[in-house]
């Protein structure tokens, strides 16, 4: 119980909370996903109540999902407790119950997009041209680091508003 211990603990916590940029790609993506939630606005109807959890869903089994659940489950975003779910691409109801849905490259994106079309679900993918194909956000690799592209119109079609700040940081903005 000395000061040094307290400082060390604080530093440890601080180093863990934000995205650990020096970490692996899945953990970076997990952190990005968590941060995306903070720059997107859902319609009020998307939540049952002000305390209702915000559900971050990951389609299929993926390291990003693991990382997300490990790091952010139980934290909060925009005042909502964070809940991390793994959902099957075929389970349309489960897909639609998520607020944010990450579709790893291993999954078939088009089917999931079709399943959640018209529902307030922020779809984030990492397959090629995902944003052009109707995804709101898409991870891309650039200069050796993880970046993302945004399609705000796709997001708005789902009733979501993407912050201009996020758009500014985005690698590219797809307007279709």
């Amino acid at each position, binding site marked *: 119980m000395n000061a040094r211990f307290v400082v060390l603990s604080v530093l440890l916590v*601080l180093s863990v*909370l934000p*995205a650990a940029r020096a970490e692996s790609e899945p953990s970076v993506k997990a952190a990005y996903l968590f941060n995306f939630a903070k720059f997107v606005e859902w319609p009020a109807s998307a939540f049952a109540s002000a305390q209702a959890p915000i559900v971050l869903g990951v389609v299929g089994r993926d390291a990003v999902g693991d990382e997300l659940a490990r790091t952010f489950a139980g934290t909060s975003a925009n005042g909502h407790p964070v809940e991390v779910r793994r959902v099957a691409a075929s389970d349309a109801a489960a897909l639609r119950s998520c607020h944010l849905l990450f579709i790893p490259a291993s999954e078939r994106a088009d089917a999931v997009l079709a399943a959640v079309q018209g529902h307030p679900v922020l779809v984030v993918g990492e397959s090629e041209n995902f944003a052009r194909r109707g995804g709101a956000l898409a991870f891309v690799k650039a200069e050796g680091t993880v970046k*993302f592209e945004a399609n705000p119109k796709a997001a708005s079609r789902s009733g979501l508003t993407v912050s201009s700040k996020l758009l*500014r*940081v985005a690698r590219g903005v797809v307007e279709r």
Partner: protein
Amino acid sequence: MTSPSFRFSDLSIRSKVTLITFAASLVALFAVAGGLYAFQLGQFRQTFERELRTLSRIMAENCAAALAFNDAKTANEVLAPLGVKPEIQHAGVLGADGENFAAFGGKDASPPPRPDATAGVVDRGASWTVVEPIVLDGKRIGTFFIDADYAGPRSQLERVYLTVTAAVLAGSLLLAVLLTIRLQHFITRPIHALATASEAVARDHDYSVRVDPHGHDELGQLTAAFNHMLARIGEQDGAMRESEERFRSVAESASDAIIVADGEGRVVSWNKGARLMFGYEAAEMSGQPLSLIMPERFRAMHAAGLKRYRETGAAHVIGKTVELAGLRKNGEEFPFEMALSTWKTGAGIFFGSVMRDIGERKAAEEALRLSQQKLLDTSRLAGMAEVATGVLHNVGNVLNSVNISASLALDKLRASKVDSFSKAAALIAQHEHDLGDFITKDPQGQRLPRFLQRLSGFLTEENAATRTELEQLGKNVEHIKEIVAMQQSYASVTGVLEDVPAEQLVEDALQLNSASFARHGIEIGRKFQPAPAVRVDKHKVLQILINLLRNAKHAVEDAERPDPRIGISVASAGDQVCIAVADNGVGIPAKNLTNVFRHGFTTKKNGHGFGLHSGANAAKEMGGALSVSSQGEGMGATFTLSLPVATTASDLCTPANQLITAS
């Protein structure tokens, strides 16, 4: 301008006003400029800080996404617009662990803030560091900071202020000069006019100078008051001159010596009277000690008196009239009477003395006394002459009666039948031997007895008549004796007051005039009420009464009335007894009523106007009075003589006696 002997109070009002206006302008200006600068500096600092903090907050907000998504490039892009603010030297974004994430500007001279630094400003004087944590969804994800140059903008502000202040100062001073020039018209000029006027008044004693008032402010009031004061001083000066002139004129025209001396006894003022009295000229005496006009023997006393008065204020002769001896220039000593007064002024004590040469007055007094004595003697002689005239007049009258009686007796004797008796006796002697026959036979003898019988009757009658005349004669002689005796009795007691009954005096006076009254057929009426004795010089009273009775007699004679009457009454009135002599003669016109007692006033042809005058004086002397009343011309007159009642010791004791009888 500034010399070692420079003093503000010696400056002219104009310079003072100018200086004061300058000083006031400077002080006001510096106060305003200083206050404004301090305020503006505070404002500037606040604004500077607020701007930087606002900027920091915006930057922190805008950098949040870039930091969240590890996008240093975007972060740098976000920071780039800071270049528009020249005071920002350096800005940076630190990651959560304090690592540099993005930066703007050159090398950061100051150490970057700690990763846990709170929002705020680190003031290092010339430069500030503004710190703003970067927070995303309530969690701190990094730190934004700006290093700004504070000294530069501040010195720029100072330069602006100095320039503006200098410009305003110059403008204000110019305005102050203009104002002073303008104020001069309103303040300096009236004061200057006042100063010039008062200098002229002080120099020339000319109180007719007036200053033009310029308005109704304090200066205007001052000017008006100054003019008013001058007018008052002028009036007072005039009044003082007039009074001084009057005093000088009075003092010069006075025959008395009027001398003013200072506290040292030195002559200050010497009038004509003094010159005439002492023989010294005013110029000769000015500043000389008063002892010069005193005989040697009084000088020590005079010096001691002066010294005493100066030291103790005790005066022996001030306010009194004293008789002293003076010394003329020619050495002659003379008596004078002096009244001394004293007064104090700012210049000290002064003595004023009015001196009168009483040598002449004393001589005049003696002459007056002598003439009065002479007059008194004359009056007494005149009075005595009056009485003597009365006496002689009466004696004359009585002698007339005596003469008549004697003539009548002589006539009677002449016409006496004694010779018939002798013839009868001779006839009887012839017939001695035949008396019987002769009587019985002779016819002549037969008539003899009847003749004798008739003769006897004649003789008896004659004897009676003669005896009557002789008795009358004797009476008249007795009367003369009485008059003479009375005159003697009055003459012998002159000047002695005696207690006598008033009626007796009245009766004596009437007695003295009775023959005269009888001769002129004047009826005398008496009315004597009981009256106490009077204490008088009876000779004088008799003189007065005789005079009054004679005047009354003349008055009724002149009136030529068929019934001339004189009334005389005695009555008691308090401690006086009044004797009134009234006549129904010519009376006295109202205009003469006040003159009758005046010396020299007379209506008689041969009068000398002395009788009533001396009578009135004598009555006054004895404690009485003589008065007159008349209804007017032809209405008669009444003279009233009041005389004091004789008061004896027993009279005075009467009240005590009454007390005894009352109890």
